[in-house]
């Protein structure tokens, strides 16, 4: 294990989680490289080798489109997330690249204060370390196949 690399990756995950939880959605695409991909799927689809995503974006333009739609088109009840990210395993794959596996829990808090364990699962990431650490690929594998009501804010 490389302690410095571990800190760099965990710091990236932490900044990502805080940006989403603080409703700074406009920052979200910046956590990805220009052509970085983001995919939410379920453990069931993944195990069956089925390609269906719950949400898929390829490159920052699509990520920005998702944010624009959430801000200007989609309608959903006011809600926030609280991300808990843990058990981060980092592996160096090149001078400026690494992979990471981490667990997550996301609690969803509605405006009426109802809290729900909304999602649990794994982040499987490919990370570009230079010039800034960013996700080249972030795969979000949800443990459950079920989503309560809707999934608006990214995980």
């Amino acid at each position, binding site marked *: 294990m490389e302690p410095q690399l571990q800190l760099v990756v965990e710091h990236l995950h932490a900044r990502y989680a805080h940006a989403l939880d603080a409703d700074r959605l406009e920052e979200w695409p910046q956590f990805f490289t220009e052509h970085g991909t983001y995919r939410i799927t*379920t453990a069931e689809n993944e195990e069956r080798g089925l390609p269906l*995503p719950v949400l*898929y974006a390829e490159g920052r333009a699509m990520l920005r489109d998702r944010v*624009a739609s959430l801000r200007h088109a*989609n*309608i*959903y*009840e006011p809600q926030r997330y609280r991300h808990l990210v843990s058990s981060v395993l980092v592996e160096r794959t090149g001078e400026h690249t690494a992979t990471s596996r981490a667990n997550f829990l996301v609690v969803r808090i509605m405006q009426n204060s109802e809290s729900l364990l909304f999602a649990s699962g794994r982040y499987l990431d490919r990370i570009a370390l230079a010039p800034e650490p960013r996700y080249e690929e972030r795969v979000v594998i949800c443990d459950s196949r079920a989503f309560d*009501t809707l999934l608006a804010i990214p995980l």
Partner: protein
Amino acid sequence: MLRRSTLQRAWPAEGATRVPYWVYQDEDVYREEQERIWRGAAWSYLCLEAELPEPQSFITTFVGDMPVVVTRDANGALHAWENRCAHRGALVCMEARGKAERFACIYHNWVYDHEGNLATVAFRRGIAGKGGLPADSKPETQAPKKLRVASLHGLVFGTLSPSAPSLEDYIGPDILPRIRRVMKKPVKVLGTYTQILPNNWKLYMDNVKDTYHASLLHLFFTRFRINRLTQKGGVFVSKDGAHHCTFTEMVEDTGDAYEKDGMRSAGSSKDFRLENPELLEQADEFGDRVSIQILSLFPGFVLHQIRNSLAARQVVPKGVERTELHWTLFGFEDDDPAMQRRRILQANLVGPAGYISMEDGAATGFVQRGVAASADRASVIEMGGSTIGSSDSRVTETAVRGLWQTWRRYMDL
């Protein structure tokens, strides 16, 4: 003839244009629906044939509250039966899907074949002449219920009713061609997920049949001019009102009806475009320029084509105020990589995170919460008048009225 309803309820005098809110709230209504509709003369969607690819494969699902095993036997024939052991009522099959030679209840190892017949009872004759079932015991009298199964263009349906019409007659000539249009060749499953809806199951079917809401609730549609009511489209309703199909043709709408009416969903089409519109690119795979077709069969099945996104949606009631929507997205076996890519990108349009469907669960949940104290009030369903039938306008609630006409017929209300 159905027996008289035991429900102490009266329908509003206005008839087809009113739906009283107790239909979404009452436990006794829910119980009665299970018996008269889900376990009654309706055909329910079970799965895609593609989910039972080989002999001896199975999948588990639900018809209303009833757990069901759907199988393909060694000879390739389809069967469906209640997932309940004749002995003590335990689930016979615990797994979601797979292949099996036999189905053994884990509780006491009573074993069933693919048709749902009780094949063996463990220690039926006891051990060493002691114990076991009496010679005249007939546990088969409590065997799992068997469903009639019919497959239509790769869609598998079942009903417990021996007297229900054939599946084709149940669906009828107005809607059948619209199913065939989509299910035109062998399909392959792309994936599945479940959306949990915080509302009564009928609110979801209301929503699906409501052609009036689509471009008003789902702003993504109108913002990107995907589906405006000013575009060419229409709705077919089956003769009995039970099933519907609505469609929109691919035309760029350059009119400004929404802007003139000051609609919330009105456009910003000039300043609001997708940076990467590849997501919306449609190949006209059915050759008829239809960009969206939403089709529903009573009681709880939806088949959608939204551009190149294709899916079966199965409605599973989970109590008065909770519904599971099981989505199965599919393509065709002969899809080329470009088509597969389109379907994957357009998966973003549908499901719980879908640009144009995420609001449905929220809106129907708002109705469930909004009517909490108003069992004595009714929703107003007068768009397009009070008739039930096909229409070339989608500013109508004709298909919703058809749903309720059908529901009342089943419920004898």
